[in-house]
């Protein structure tokens, strides 16, 4: 009976959402007449005054950099919350996350692949302003590399203190760059470096620095998440 009611409710809701979005239309400009959308300004400013190739990056880091700061904070809070929710008074002695190592093929394979994965992550977040990707993606890739090592070896450990130091330093870099912009240029996260030439690695002023900091931070945070969760024995 409850199922039936829920399905009915969902059908009504789905109908209204669908007609709204079908009416809005797909794949062409659906703005109200006479409105100048913000995206044109973004696209122009990105090329002309920031010299960043990837518009998504310039939006995420510069125009709407405040969102990104909040987003990084959300991840940071998620790590803290995980630690708080799964907190136990003391860890039992000899508690291990993985019971035995994988076979030789997997262990040697992951050993060889691990530096390559980290390099891929570094590539993704260093080139965040030129190609798709950036701090989050790079950080996630590095964390996945750590996940591989943690899975393959029974006694691979990650220093918890090291992680939190890296995380804090990266966070301070982000917020510090923002505050420096406030002091130097008059508003939070304002760009205070020369912007370089378009499609060069050293371009975009402060954007690559922030993205590298974000990359380190996300990598440390997600590794922390994986590590915490892996050591949770029901």
């Amino acid at each position: 009976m409850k199922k039936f009611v829920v399905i009915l409710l969902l059908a009504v809701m789905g109908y209204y959402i669908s007609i709204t979005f079908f009416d809005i239309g797909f794949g062409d400009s659906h703005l109200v007449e006479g409105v100048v959308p913000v995206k044109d300004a973004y696209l122009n400013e990105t090329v002309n005054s920031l010299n960043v190739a990837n518009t998504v990056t310039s939006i995420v880091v510069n125009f709407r950099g405040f969102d990104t700061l909040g987003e990084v904070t959300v991840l940071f809070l998620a790590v803290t919350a995980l630690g708080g929710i799964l907190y136990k008074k003391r860890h039992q002695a000899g508690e291990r996350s993985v019971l035995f190592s994988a076979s030789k093929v997997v262990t040697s394979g992951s050993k060889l692949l691990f530096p390559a994965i980290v390099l891929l992550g570094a590539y993704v977040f260093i080139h965040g302003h030129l190609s798709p990707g950036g701090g989050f993606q790079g950080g996630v890739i590095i964390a996945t590399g750590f996940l591989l090592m943690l899975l393959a070896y029974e006694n691979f450990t990650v220093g918890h203190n090291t992680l939190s130091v890296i995380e804090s330093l990266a966070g301070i870099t982000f917020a510090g760059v923002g505050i420096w912009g406030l002091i130097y240029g008059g508003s939070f996260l304002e760009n205070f470096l020369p912007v370089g030439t378009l499609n060069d690695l050293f371009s975009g002023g402060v954007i690559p620095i922030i993205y590298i900091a974000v990359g380190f931070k996300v990598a440390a945070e997600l590794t922390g998440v994986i590590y915490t969760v892996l050591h949770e024995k029901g």
Partner: protein
Amino acid sequence: MVGTPVLFVAIPLLAAFLIPLFGMIWKESVRVIPGIVLAYLLVLAINLMNYVMVNGPIVEVIAGWAPPLGINLVFSAFSGFLVTLMVFLGLIVWMYSYRFKRNVDFEPAKKYFLLLMMLITGSVGMVLTGDIFNLFVFIEITSISAYALTAFYTGRDSAEASFKYLMLGSLASAFLLIAIMIIYSQLGTLNMADIGSKMHLMKPAYKIMAIIFLFTALGIEAEIFPLNGWAPDAYAEAPGPVGAAFAGIVVKAAIYASIRIIYTLFDLSGAYDLLIVIGMITLIVAETAAIRQEKLKRMLAYSSIGQMGLVMVAFGMGTEEGVFAALFLMFNHAIIKSLLFLSGSYLVYNSKDKLIKEVNGIGKFLPITSFLFVLGSFAIVGLPPFAGFWSKLSVLTAAADSNMLLIIALVLIVSIIEVVYYMRVVNRIYFFKKDESVSTQRPTLNALIAMITLGAIVLIVGFYPDAVTGFLHRASADLMDKAGYINDVLTLN
């Protein structure tokens, strides 16, 4: 001017990233740093309020791009007033919970104070921001801290309450995103002032869809009636000071956001009626539920929901007196409900089930705490010499001005219900015999200072309401001035 509004967000974030580092060197710093930060923010807020009272609102721009492009923060009389209130309450809650129960150990204390600080930061950000997606981000910051704080005690039910909250919260964020996208697809902008200035161009059908989704989403955070399932459980299972923070800070921020959206973004006249209807239903349902509760904190929680309904009704009148009354109610509710939660959690400190009957005769053992609780009860039901009286009076006069007699009758009936269940507790505190099996706990000095400060404010506002009404009139005028808001934001540079 001593600082800029962006420091309200930047400084706590910087401190949050610093806390783990300092915690390795000096363990006490995890407790001290949030206090220093909150005290600094309070000073900043008061300074900025002084500036705003003289010179008009401050509009802060992030990353040096003028508003339609960049994100902006607005520190006007209205938002500044709420920010000051929130930071002040945050400081009180911090002082109260300095060594409260599980906070004695290092690891939990680190997480607790960090999360508490971020809860306050998220709420302050929700109030300050002038960008609708930034609002979403701050809501998420607030909610994740709230989930973690709700589940902070390792008891059986806290995780359940937190899960319930989380489920509704993620639905809320999903709805919020849909609403944001409907608006964006039509107007091509995310800035609130820009949206407000272009809203008349949008088709009414889309407007209705967007406002339904927005209202559902924010209603979950603001405990509006059909969506308040999480609230009593979360209040009851969270640590005592966190309950105070929810009632005083988080809900205020959510109410602010929904009011800002209805008053500034949309020009639908039906929205005000919607506010009144929903507010009235919330009020009746919550108050009748409160009278049936057996646990102290759940009773307080339902009472809090009821008060929020009253605030909604007052906002829904749409006149300047109504807004003034609503703001006065919000101010009083923040102070008084925090006082009730803080003192109430010492009344039932050691009991397992936190039942109301366990406070029997506790007045002799904890005289100051009990006195403060009773003071809060008297104030919130609106007995004449206390703070709550003036706010209820202003609601009644505003309703009378708008010829809404139904509201007057409703408020009076609800007040009677409130009197019944609060007086029941007061009666038990002083005139019942103490149950010997219940052990009591004396409040620590810092908790006592925190509670007495709140009690003093209740008394001061009660005997001398003009202390705040000046600010409130200014703030309500500020909210009503939609054109001024849009003008302030959009004519920057």
